[in-house]
């Protein structure tokens, strides 16, 4: 029976407890909308139960984030949300203003660093989130976001560099850093 095979890896409940909130947050950032995120994540877990859990019982993270991302992007596509649709935009554009989602709810609560992160291009924010919120490896992130590990490396490097800069501009405690050849 299929259901017995699930028992070889973590149980559904364990996987659910571990990933529910991170996936919700991840999807909410892509769709810009918590309600949509709930639907996407729910669908992800249903699919996970249906077949994902059977094949990837040992390492569900990559699978879950991939399916969740596809679902979230699909929502964006269907609803013609602007962000995440235009590849060029995602890669390069820095947002002058944080998204309204962030603006509304995070202004007071979020830390200084988080507000800087909110101004990075969406794609960089996404890899940062996968890396530092979900502790995924470059390899896993590359699989999830359908790109190369090198590109993930570049995105994270660029994002951190920008964070350092912004941080430095406003925080005197931070040691300045000037790139040069060694």
């Amino acid at each position, binding site marked *: 029976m299929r259901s017995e095979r699930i028992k070889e890896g973590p149980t559904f409940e364990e996987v659910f407890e571990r990933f529910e909130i991170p996936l919700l947050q991840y999807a909410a950032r892509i769709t810009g909308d918590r309600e949509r995120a709930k639907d996407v994540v729910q669908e992800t877990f249903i699919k996970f139960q249906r077949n994902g859990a059977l094949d990837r019982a040992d390492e569900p993270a990559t699978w879950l984030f991939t399916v969740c991302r596809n679902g979230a992007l*699909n929502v964006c596509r269907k609803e*013609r949300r602007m962000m995440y649709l235009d590849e060029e935009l995602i890669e390069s554009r820095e947002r002058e203003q944080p998204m309204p989602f962030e603006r509304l709810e995070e202004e007071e609560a979020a830390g200084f660093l988080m507000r800087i*992160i909110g101004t990075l291009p969406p794609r960089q924010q996404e890899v940062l989130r996968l890396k530092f919120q979900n502790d995924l490896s470059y390899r896993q992130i590359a699989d999830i976001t359908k790109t190369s590990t090198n590109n993930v490396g570049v995105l994270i490097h660029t994002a951190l560099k920008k964070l350092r800069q912004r941080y430095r501009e406003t925080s005197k405690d931070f040691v300045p850093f000037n790139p040069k050849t060694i």
Partner: protein
Amino acid sequence: MNIDDSKLTAFALDELDEPERSAIARVVAESPEAQRFVDEIRELAGAVKNEFAAELEREAPALVSQGKHAFEFARGFRRTGDCRSLIDIRDDPWFWSIARPLAIAAVLALLAVVSGVALFSLRHENVRVAQGEGIGPVPVRSKPADVQAEFQMPVEAAASPAAKAPSSLPLKMAEPAAGKVGSLNYSLAQARAEALDREERFRGIRQPSAEFNTAAYDDIVENRFLDAKDNPLSTFSIDVDTASYSNVRRFINEGSLPPRDAVRVEEMINYFTYDYAQPSDGKPFAVHVDAVSCPWETSHRLVRIGLKGKEIATDKRGPSNLVFLLDVSGSMTPPERLPLVKQAMRLLVEKLTENDRVAIVVYAGASGLALPSTTGDHKEQILEALENLQAGGSTNGAEGIQLAYKIAADNFIKGGVNRVILATDGDFNVGVTNQGDLIRLIEEKAKSGVFLSVLGVGTDNLKDSTMQKLADKGNGNYAYLDSLDEASKVLVQQMNGTLVTIAKDVKIQVEFNPARVASYRLIGYEKRLLRKEDFNNDKVDAGEIGAGHTVTALYEVVPVGAATNPAASVPPVDPLKYSSNERSTSAQSTSSNEMLTVKLRYKKPDGDNSELVERAVTDTAGKFEDGPVDLKFAAAVAEFGMILRDSEYKGNGTFAAVLEWAQEGKGSDANGYRAGFIELVRKAQALSKG
């Protein structure tokens, strides 16, 4: 190596494999600079990690607030996993309180996995949901009694489940494949559309298009020719919407002919103002009727019914209480959407005085009050609030509508203009926002005496049908803004027409004299048809007319004895066996020369009881060539619309003929709109050849 290298960052984050890791490690060991960089990156990474962890903690309550139940539910079902538990769940009111199509889908999908194959049919008796958009789940608010789910377990259930599932599932989740509507979504959408249609008694049954298309146009089944003996009465609601014309214009200017169902002939005709005389008898509007030969079918007659609303000078306009309800969701970002709306609103604000009040409500992921009700002399304050609006997030139209109407009610001016002005691309997609609910919400709010204007913007996902229905049910008008010029026409030049309603629930009933008229066809107004008994029923909602507005309706009439072309012939019906034909023959025996009688009913803007106006018309056999210029122009627009629709009733008309009639009917054309029309016909003509 360059210190500004992603490899160094990767090293700092321990992301390198051997031998790369060792190589970089040696470089770092030798360079204090690189060592410092690595330390900094690690420090930064730690800080970022902490921030992300804090964010998760902070967001968690909001993230799981309602969703949890759905998951619990899915999990609970997995544990039990048989059909009986489904029945139990169905009886549980909790389930229905949170049930969404997806949750239902989850049960079905799981059920299918367990049992191999499941067939299902969902019967929604009273489900009010958005029309077939296939955009993921829409919450269904329904009581247990409203929904019945039936499941049948077919014989194949005995076959090995592992071999069959999941590829052979008869129903799939909405698959991520872009542009496709999952079969479950589709069947739900169909059920929704049908439920909605059943309630719309004026309209024929329409199925949602199977093709995925986010710009939603309802099918229009054109009015047929009707036999004047069998159907002597033709009843419809007036319509002052103009959106279809500007939408059609946008298509043509972008180099393509519009989809057929985007063309609503009556809205095209009514886009133009005609020079009808004002009422002189103290009534809110004047009625003009005339008949000429029909230019595209010369043996037929073309009857025009023209209404002219009383003009109200700008300075005579009563005080206004306006609430702008602006969609600031992500889809409103492009320049021709929110930025255009803001420009349009600025134009309007410039015209306001200290007697007017303006509030701004925005809606997106959250709805909110961007400007409390402010008098029109505080222009800077209003303009600043407009300026600060930005697009982003998703749309919860319903909440915004609730809030806007509440503010309109709080600031209600008795005897003044009380109006919500909704500007959106119509993409209502979050919360309780299925189309049926929205329409009911608006209908409910309209009873408070607050009128509605809908300004549509945007192109690829314009929810044309939703917006038309909202305006229709909300005692309002609907205009499509494709340019700042159009915004200026709607909000400045015709400001009073847009804002000041002088009569509401205006209905027209035409009685044809079968002694003179063999058959007739109402051109356009397909979405405005009423039943003949609705005419005298004051509970039945109909269109509004604004100050100075003109409304025009055209009939193509086949006189008795005229040769008919095949399209105009009414298929004969066998004589009735049990009912006598007395009534119709007696009607025929009247010796009246009158061709028809036009009756109108309307209510005062704040009234509940209708008043009746009647006008009998005798055909004086006038020719089109000698007819009024306005009639020629209206005929040109009507024929243009029919050609664009590729209507079977377009007769002998061609683009060239349309141009000719429009030239003859151009008149003084103070605003240049008719010249614009002529230009548009030329473009369409060129497109149709290309």
